[in-house]
């Protein structure tokens, strides 16, 4: 189970990388494995204001569409445009080239509510 130590996590299987007041979001290795090969990603446009917990993106496998929830509140800075033509990057490199979008944080205190790697691992084990 690949759960990088430097990232934070959500109960809905997103990962979060914090750099200053910018958060990069993706889905975890466990999530991509459960969803199986992804064939489409619908990502939020830059500038869109989002609230923690809100459904902001959709990833789709051949069989099903799955919502992606905003782990933190803020404004979308950028979405990963490579996923438009190659959504399978989410499967092949979920923590790298398969990132989904970046958020300029408006309420950085929310970071405290995210799961640490060990907590996320415990969640998966249960």
């Amino acid at each position, binding site marked *: 189970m690949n759960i990088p130590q430097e990232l934070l996590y959500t109960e809905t299987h997103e990962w979060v990388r914090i750099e200053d007041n910018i958060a990069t979001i993706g889905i975890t290795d466990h999530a991509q494995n459960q969803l199986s090969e992804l064939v489409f990603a*619908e990502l939020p446009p830059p500038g869109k204001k989002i609230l923690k917990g809100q459904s902001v993106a959709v990833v789709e496998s*051949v*069989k099903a569409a799955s919502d992606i929830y905003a782990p933190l509140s803020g404004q979308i800075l950028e979405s990963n445009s490579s996923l438009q*033509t190659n959504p399978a990057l989410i499967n092949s490199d979920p923590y790298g080239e398969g990132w989904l979008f970046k958020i300029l944080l408006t309420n950085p205190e929310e970071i405290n509510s995210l799961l640490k790697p060990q907590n996320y691992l415990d969640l998966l084990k249960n």
Partner: protein
Amino acid sequence: MSDSVSPLQSPLKNLHQSLGARFVQFAGWQLPVFFKSILSEHHAVRNNVGLFDISHMGQFFISGSLARSWLDTLLTNDIQSLPPGRALYTFLLNESGGILDDIIVYCLDAASFLLVVNASTTSSDKEWMLDRIPDSGVHFEDASNRSLALAVQGPASPSIWEKLTQSPMPPRNSVLRSKTAFGSLILATTGYTGEIGFEIFSSESTPSLAEQLFNYLLSLGAQPCGLGARDTLRLEMAFPLNGTDLSPDITPLEANLPQFVKFQKPGFIGKNSLLIQKQNGISRLLSPLLLEPNSPPPRHASKILVEQKVISGVTSGTISPSLNRGIALATLPIQYASPNTQLLVQIRDKLYSAQVVKKPFYKKIS
């Protein structure tokens, strides 16, 4: 069928589990949706060979002196002149010409037939047929819940057939009984993927023999495949699925499959309604739609629009793994059903352009 009822299981369930299958519930059965991934299994069938467990499909053995003429009155295709050793695709209709099921009929010998029917309609087909069975002259045996059925599909299928039977694979739509190391099997060069291949039916197989046979076919190079790839493969050929694309609300003429209806036959259930429909002209047609590049997968019930007006809904859709494009089937008003007609498909809150195309979506480069 209630969800609380425990699902029916293939005799191969344990083997599937050990091969890492992920399961899905379908028509009351628990079946592998994929082993490795839908896309890799899809490509294995298009380029090499895949192995499907289709034990969920219904199997009716129908025999007797009146079996042939009785089936000919129930089914739309020409059963009367179907020779032993041959198979055909046909419809079972209600009196209004609506499709109850699409079925493959295998003629095993002059007075003996195997009907392979959809899992979702096995019990309603059986009830419909038994309500109409003559007092004598037809023996009806439902082998559905104790049968093994496998499909070997893909361009490398003939070499597997040859190793299994020690004889060359016959042409498409042949059927024969074969004594093999895995018991007496019915082997038929049929399938629903658009590739050459064959299907294996056995109503006497034990779970242990079934596992040995499945493992033997894997050892010959077949990749285990689940229902996910079965669906993308049939959809690339624009083959309809009963229960989504086909239903009692649609006739074979509206489904754009008139070649499986033989009007010259003396009579069959639904014939009169179809004749009237043929005379008046149909008002809608099951049509293939190709979406613009990089669209999300169209799915069942995605709305289809023309000039902001909803004209229909997708019956089945997916991303075609071979074309890497969204594809769908939908029953369209006839004025929008000609090839090259431009339409819009709504997926969530966005509209994607789509074009009516000729079937199949996928054509083998030869």
